[in-house]
């Protein structure tokens, strides 16, 4: 809960900072603040306290995801200095919107009431709509914002109808109460309850961009400013998945058979489609967008195999995914800055232009592809182990096929970097970004060396 207070407070501070011309120290302040929030949350791990008449519950699930969200945000802030500096007039606006998004994310991880879930999603989404459009003179950015906005609100409609129907059947918005009602009255639940559950699933599937509700994602990801894309594909994704997992494990875990078929279809599509399409992309940003959609498939696979016991695996997967994603975006940003483009040809010969960047993004892509000993492998491994445990061998094989496809397009970038002639002169990277990239790469290895700590959180 402290984390939530601090993040909201920071968001307000960021707004006020405009008045005092405190931009210089703002990002420093934000990073410190988030670090403090993390520091305050870690000691509380292992406890489970509910606040505000049971509106939010900070248990290990919530706190772990909050910590993950905030950690990635810190890294992101470090990475995205350019994003803030390129439009000083809106420096504080952007910072505060990002922080509100984080607050929304924390709420989505810690909600114990559908109202909080809904508001968390909306805070997150509304801030993001504008952030996606924050490159105001770029048509692509405008379109991304608008598309994201239309699709987002459309999805909200479904989510709300679902919540309403569930409320009608269970007479409560409280997650625990709903779960209890579902168990006790399972026989007498009206049909519209199940419709409601499915609608909630549709609504959340939009938010986690699972196929076939993903069609906004690639456009939005490639249209938004690259830094924002990085944020969307990490922090936001983590938050959305946390919400999804929580709703369907805690709330509707007991009636898994009624929705697992639908989720299974969604999952199969999510595994297959984006990975296929990503292979056809010539733009790295867009490729990463599709790949981030594809990763949802693995998470869904893990979730589907053990709806009530998959949090740790998913959490680890997301941690690995986020760090790798941030790394690849950090490199992408540097490349984009120099070449003003994110096509795959801009990566040609990166190894010769700046070995550090090339190696870092290689490690990140390998991690995303699930090559050991990187963290991404253990993530996928956790998924497979859960799926095989439940006898979903054929789905696992599908996952493997798709992860091979994933490897295919990740390697296109790697090959371009190591094989092709350089597409330009050497790239110089500022010291702080260098340090960040080294930290991130080290992080990817560290995650793979000591995953136990993360896994024991649940």
């Amino acid at each position: 809960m402290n984390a939530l207070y601090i993040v909201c407070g920071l968001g307000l501070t960021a707004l006020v900072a405009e008045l005092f011309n405190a931009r210089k120290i703002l990002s420093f302040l934000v990073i410190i603040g988030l670090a403090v929030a993390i520091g305050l949350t870690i000691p509380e791990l292992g406890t489970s306290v509910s606040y505000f008449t049971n509106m939010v519950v900070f248990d290990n699930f919530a706190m772990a995801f909050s910590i993950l969200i905030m950690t990635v945000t810190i890294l992101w802030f470090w990475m995205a200095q350019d994003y803030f500096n390129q439009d000083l007039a809106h420096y504080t606006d952007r910072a505060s919107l990002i922080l509100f998004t984080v607050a929304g994310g924390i709420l989505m991880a810690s909600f114990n009431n559908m109202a909080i879930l809904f508001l968390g999603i909306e805070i997150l989404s509304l801030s993001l709509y504008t952030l996606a459009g924050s490159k105001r003179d770029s048509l692509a950015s405008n379109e991304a914002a608008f598309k994201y906005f239309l699709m987002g609100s459309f999805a909200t409609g479904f989510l709300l109808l679902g919540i309403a129907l569930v409320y009608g059947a269970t007479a409560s918005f409280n997650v625990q109460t709903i779960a209890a009602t579902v168990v006790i009255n399972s026989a007498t639940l009206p049909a519209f309850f199940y419709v409601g559950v499915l609608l909630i699933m549709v609504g959340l599937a939009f938010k986690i961009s699972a196929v076939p509700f993903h069609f906004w994602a690639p456009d939005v990801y490639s249209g938004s400013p690259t830094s924002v894309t990085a944020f969307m594909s990490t922090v936001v994704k983590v938050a959305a998945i946390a919400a999804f997992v929580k709703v369907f494990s805690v709330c509707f875990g007991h009636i898994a058979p009624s929705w697992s078929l639908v989720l299974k279809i969604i999952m199969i599509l999510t595994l297959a489609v984006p990975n296929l399409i990503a292979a056809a992309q010539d733009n790295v940003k867009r490729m990463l967008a599709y790949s981030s959609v594809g990763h949802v498939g693995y998470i869904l696979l893990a979730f589907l195999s053990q709806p009530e016991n998959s949090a740790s695996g998913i959490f680890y997967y997301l941690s690995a995914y986020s760090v790798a994603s941030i790394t690849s975006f950090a490199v992408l940003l540097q490349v984009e800055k120099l070449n003003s483009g994110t096509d795959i040809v801009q990566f040609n010969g990166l190894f010769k232009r700046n070995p550090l960047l090339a190696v870092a993004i290689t490690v990140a892509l390998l991690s995303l592809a699930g090559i050991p000993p990187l963290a991404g492998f253990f993530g996928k491994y956790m998924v497979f182990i859960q799926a095989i445990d439940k006898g979903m061998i054929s789905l696992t094989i599908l996952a493997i096929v798709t992860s091979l496809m994933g490897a295919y397009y990740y390697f296109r970038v790697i090959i371009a970097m190591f094989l092709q002639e350089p597409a330009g002169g050497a790239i110089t990277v500022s010291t702080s970004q260098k340090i960040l990239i080294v930290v991130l790469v080290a992080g990817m290895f560290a995650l793979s060396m000591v995953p136990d700590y993360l896994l024991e959180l649940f």
Partner: protein
Amino acid sequence: MKIPVEYYLWLSLALFCIGVLGVLFRRNAIIVFMCIELMLNAVNVLLVAFSTYLNDAAGQVFVFFIMAVAAAEVAVGLAILVKMHDNTKTVDIDILNRLKW
């Protein structure tokens, strides 16, 4: 003086589906946006009906949050729309397909 709650269910589903239809059917972004508002309103009707039926105020309280969110969405959405119109001189959503793969 009693109306079965199902009637409200039907009504709100009808409105919701009309909203969905509008979102899919129209190209004018503003109308699409309005249809989304219609969807939210359908949900509101349903929530109030349930709330009255269950004699539980929570449903109506939830409606307020939806309203707040709807208002916020409108502010943001129209800002984006106006910005987009500045750049493209149109609100036809089909031009959004420029970014297709």
